[in-house]
């Protein structure tokens, strides 16, 4: 049997363009890339079916028929790709709504960036001090007594809880924010 060269070339081009687009950070391009790659894969399955003959429905001699199984695969794959693309579109739209002043790019994980820019892990310092104090449980309860505050940044108290929550996954303790602590305090007050 012969493999139609045109289809192979189309598949290759689709794969190449699809992969190129998927390497982009823009979400819309990612979606387009996914669609191209998905169709290239469908074409790959079709090429892999090996025989090109009469339609497998409607009788006739079995020898001249196409292999129906890959076509069933392709149908299933098309349906799945369709559903996933619809979901992706909704996701992209939502992402774009949430970040209107930016474009529709993949956002970085703040906690990762935070960790990458941290000079040393602050928790280790915490651990040592606290382990020494830990067994006492003396000032454990949540009474409202005015606390002697070791916190050098009183500005942070004023931040509404919701605002603090947003940064919760990514506590700001990187070197940059520390070095500019004094300047910040002036600005926020």
């Amino acid at each position: 049997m012969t493999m139609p060269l045109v289809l192979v070339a189309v598949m290759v081009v689709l794969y190449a363009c699809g992969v190129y687009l998927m390497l982009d950070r823009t979400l819309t391009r990612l979606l387009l890339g996914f669609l191209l790659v998905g169709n290239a894969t469908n074409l790959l399955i079709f090429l892999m079916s090996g025989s090109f003959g009469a339609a497998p429905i409607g009788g006739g001699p079995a020898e001249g028929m196409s292999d129906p199984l890959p076509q069933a695969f392709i149908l299933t794959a098309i349906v799945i790709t369709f559903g996933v693309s619809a979901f992706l579109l909704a996701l992209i739209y939502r992402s774009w709504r949430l970040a209107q002043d930016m474009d529709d790019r993949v956002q970085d994980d703040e906690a990762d960036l935070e960790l990458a820019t941290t000079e040393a892990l602050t928790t280790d310092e915490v651990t040592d001090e606290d382990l020494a104090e830990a067994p006492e449980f003396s000032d454990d309860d949540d009474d409202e007594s005015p606390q002697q505050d070791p916190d050098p940044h009183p500005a942070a108290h004023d931040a509404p809880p919701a605002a603090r929550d947003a940064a919760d996954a990514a506590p700001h303790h990187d070197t940059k924010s520390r070095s500019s602590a004094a300047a910040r305090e002036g600005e926020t007050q």
Partner: protein
Amino acid sequence: MMTVLVPLVVLVPLASAAFALAVPGHRKLQQGITLFSLTAVLALSGTLMWLVDAHGTLVMEVGGWAAPFGIALVVDRVSALMLVVSSVVLLGVFVFSIGQGLADGDEDTPVSIYYPTYLVLGAGVFNAFIAGDLFNLYVGFEILLVSSYVLITLGGTAQRIRAGVTYVIVSLVSSVLFLATIGLIYGATGSVNMAQLTVRIAELPSEVQLLLNLALLIAFGIKAAVFPLSFWLPDSYPTAPAPVTAVFAGLLTKVGVYAIIRSQTLLFPQSSVDTLLMVVAGLTLIVGILGAVSQLDIKRLLSFTLISHIGYMIFGIGMANAAGFAATIYYIAHHIIVQTTLFLAVGLIERQGGTTSLAGLGGLLRAAPVIAVLFFIPMLNLGGIPPFSGFIGKLGLFTVAAEIATPEAYWLIGIGALVSLLTLYALARAWVLAFWRPKKRAEAEARSLKSPTTETLILREREEALLERLQDAPGATPNQEKKEIPRLMFAATAGMVAVSIALTIFAGPLYAYAARAGQDMAAPGEMVQLVLGDTPGSLGGGSGDTRPGEDTR
């Protein structure tokens, strides 16, 4: 005769999902349907496990089409065990989520879709476990992935959308790769039935085998979060609601591991990538746990331990003998339960302490001693402290490795022991900081850590203003205020802890079962015969006469 039960494990949750979707707004009714369905599946899979262990592998030919042509559903000992464990997890997490009131609209979840999606996720997982051909496995993967896309972006808050984008795109890449590999395998062999592939792939040239094997390994490796392909996981899992994270952590990566086991034992027993698997296992173990040690957030920390412990399973697969598979199977069962329990306990911590960041937690031992215990037991279990199932699983793996006595095996024993220690260190640090540290200190620390910059303040204000405009974004900020913890959440977590202890108490029979399963895996001939009929070699099947390799026309 009993094969009738096999497709029911998929059909029951799918049908219930449809019913639950048909009654939006009736939360109690939806919960009832879900509870009934998950209980029924648990009973079904328990029955299947008993049947399979007593009478051997069950094969169901869907629609009565003979095996190589039609779709075969196969339940052997491994899939039966996976079915039981995953239905236990789904049920436990479901009870937890009822307790949390996830679906009652007071949080960031749309009312009507949570339970149906959850059921569809279950159906996808079960379908992947009973799939007897590669394409059906792919469909199972897609079902569970699509519902996981929905679950991970529940509520559509900024954080979850960001995490969801990463997760969806990485999963898509792996799915496309899997599908393309199925196409290539079909082109090379003219079949996708796994039993028939056992025979036919063996006839291929070894380079082709290796190529197909590696392509499948990459596709499954992304899903299982094996080291170089694991970076998506800690980015995406922690932002989802606690029960969703728990069920994802327990089940989804294990489906990937299960697929790796199947492909290594059934499809490519001759094409040896064992050394590669061992190296990858070692790297996964080390890199994962180092990530965990450096994390401040408990959910992220647990996500990294999850990656790290996938390494143990790959280690077991890499040893490629019956005892190794047995240890892996036991380890998977143990890890599904324990990892889920830990995430549920973290859900309780989040409720009690208002955050999952270790910087902001403290003094919980006095405030909530029950949570301390509920976190402590699975923590010791995951770290591999002797009486628990984690120890038994690791001991099993190390024993087999010592019997193999190759340099890689000895290396991995060392790495495995080290990682076990580091797991305990990372989790114990989290436990001490969250439960033992005096509350006030923690608050002071948190403030000094969290003093925000002006830019972030401005950004946040802008985001809040934006979110107010987006009326359809309920609860845009993550759930942070402290709330009453319903009894049901405690009960569900305690139940899961009890199950993990049961894994220890019944370790003898369970490990024996896993050993029998491992023998089945190491010698797939019996199953091949069952699926294909009496004469596996001579059955032409599929479209053998239309193989592209043959120059017939």
